[in-house]
């Protein structure tokens, strides 16, 4: 019986073909390539790469209408932020020089030092707007191709500082069998006269506790837009205790849970949450979103409850997972959402 099972697994395992993205040149856009690296078994790796938007159009702003991300399996997330307020040591100038494809960059390698390394300290990007992200990586479809809605684009000014954050996990829950490797293509739309700017919304429930003594819990929050918008894309983000992640439209006036009919996003896979594209949901002025993070407690797989307890700021000694980036000892409840038109600001609900 065991032999049969092994044979079946060998036959059905996907044959990984390394992804290949074209290298963009001229004013067609720009290509970033994170140098390949390995993640030791049982470990996680979070790196922060800093690079400036190149001047590829004689000083004019770039209007990015398509983003392609090639990501080897094992990736927990790849996020691209605009760098704003610098604090707590997450400073591009403090990084080690490297190259992201053809472009000079610096990197702060966070390894799995989630307690001390600034690349893990989330307060650093509390006002760093998200540009693009993907949590999708599997051997069969390693490329995420995000074509923005017609006449909508992400706006870059040459010289803008970006941060590409990679987070790889190499555990039994989320293995990294082929090394960590990430590439991003930003495609530039030349005809910018009629384009509308894409904005991003980042929302998080920071005060979460998933405890052994109360194993099934749901946390919810809301976030309002400053103007009438159309939601283009969204994805939810939580860790191993995550059961269901739901996002609803919210009228901005009610404190009771929105009806099921207003739900527009669902994820039941913490390790491969779907990026929902082409949502095309119109929301009026003063409205927003409501999101739920539903959890089911389970013990850590790589660390111990002593490690989880050591991270608990309230020292409840109940193996309570609290807010934190490491997937085995911390939890998240984050919304990444893209909307248009962006007016004066992106949106953060912290």
């Amino acid at each position, binding site marked *: 019986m065991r032999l049969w099972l092994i044979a079946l697994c060998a036959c059905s395992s996907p044959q990984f073909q390394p992804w290949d993205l074209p290298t963009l040149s001229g004013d067609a856009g720009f290509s970033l390539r994170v140098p390949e690296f390995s993640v030791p078994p049982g470990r996680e790796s979070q790196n922060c790469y800093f690079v400036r938007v190149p001047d590829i159009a004689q000083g004019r702003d770039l209007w990015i209408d398509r983003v392609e991300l090639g990501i080897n399996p094992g990736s927990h997330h790849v996020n691209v932020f*605009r760098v*704003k*307020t610098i604090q707590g040591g997450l400073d591009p100038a403090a990084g080690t020089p490297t190259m992201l494809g053809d472009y000079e960059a610096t990197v702060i390698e966070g390894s799995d030092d989630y307690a001390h390394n600034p690349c893990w300290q*989330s*307060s650093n990007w*509390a*006002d*760093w*707007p998200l540009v693009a992200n993907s949590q999708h990586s599997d051997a069969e479809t390693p490329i995420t191709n995000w074509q923005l809605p017609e006449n909508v684009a992400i706006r870059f000014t040459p010289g803008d500082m970006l941060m590409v954050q990679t987070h790889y996990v190499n555990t039994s829950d989320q293995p990294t069998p082929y090394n960590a490797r990430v590439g991003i293509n930003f495609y530039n739309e030349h005809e910018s006269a009629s384009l509308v700017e894409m904005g991003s919304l980042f929302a*998080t*429930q*920071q*005060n*979460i*506790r998933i405890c052994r003594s*109360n194993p099934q*819990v*749901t*946390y*919810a*929050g*809301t*976030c*309002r*837009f*400053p103007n009438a918008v159309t939601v283009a894309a969204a994805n939810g983000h939580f860790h191993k205790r995550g059961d269901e992640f739901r996002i609803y439209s919210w009228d*901005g*006036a*009610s*404190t*009771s*849970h929105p009806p099921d009919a207003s739900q527009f996003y669902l994820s039941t896979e913490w390790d491969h949450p779907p990026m929902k594209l082409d949502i095309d949901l119109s929301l009026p002025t*003063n409205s927003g979103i*409501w999101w739920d993070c539903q959890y089911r407690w389970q013990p850590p797989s790589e660390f111990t409850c002593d490690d989880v307890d050591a991270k608990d700021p*309230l020292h*409840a000694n109940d193996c*309570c997972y609290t*807010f934190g980036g490491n997937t085995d000892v911390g939890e998240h409840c984050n919304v990444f959402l893209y909307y248009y038109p962006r007016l*004066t*600001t*992106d*949106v*953060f*609900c*912290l």
Partner: protein
Amino acid sequence: MRSLLLLAIGCSTHEPTFCPVGDPTAAAALDIIHLDDRYEPHTTTAYARVPLFLPQQGGWAARLGARATNIDGCHVDATTSFRDLDSAQVAKVDQRPTLLDDLGDGWGITPATAISELQFCPQPAATRDLHDEPYEVTVELVDLNGQHAAQSIVIVPVCDDDPTGRCLCMCARDYVIGSPCY
């Protein structure tokens, strides 16, 4: 085999713990509380100056909970929100499972481990400063048996515990996210 499985599942089912605070057959009631920077609870009175603090991922939030009676202290959800007095619009809602520690006098209080953190700032849709101005907060509790209590009260969120000035900056009406606050 299926019968055995069902039997096993049936045996493992148990009634949830019931922790009545006061008389669960009487109408539930609550008073809003807030925590100071030392996590000490205070009963929130009308126009109380409620301190905002900095959570680890940024923003400025108030720690709000309840002192409640006639409700199950073990299985209760809290919905906390705030709104501008000039509008029917709700600026922010936080919903979470919470607890009530029995005070021994028929009332229970939200412990620090189950408190709501309600983000006040930044708010891109703000029409007034979010500090030193009155806003209405509401705390609502619902237990597993449907016992329900709520209170709304006007408070004044303040940045008194932040010596850096960043709270005043990010809670200003015209603050634009990403602009410097030095």
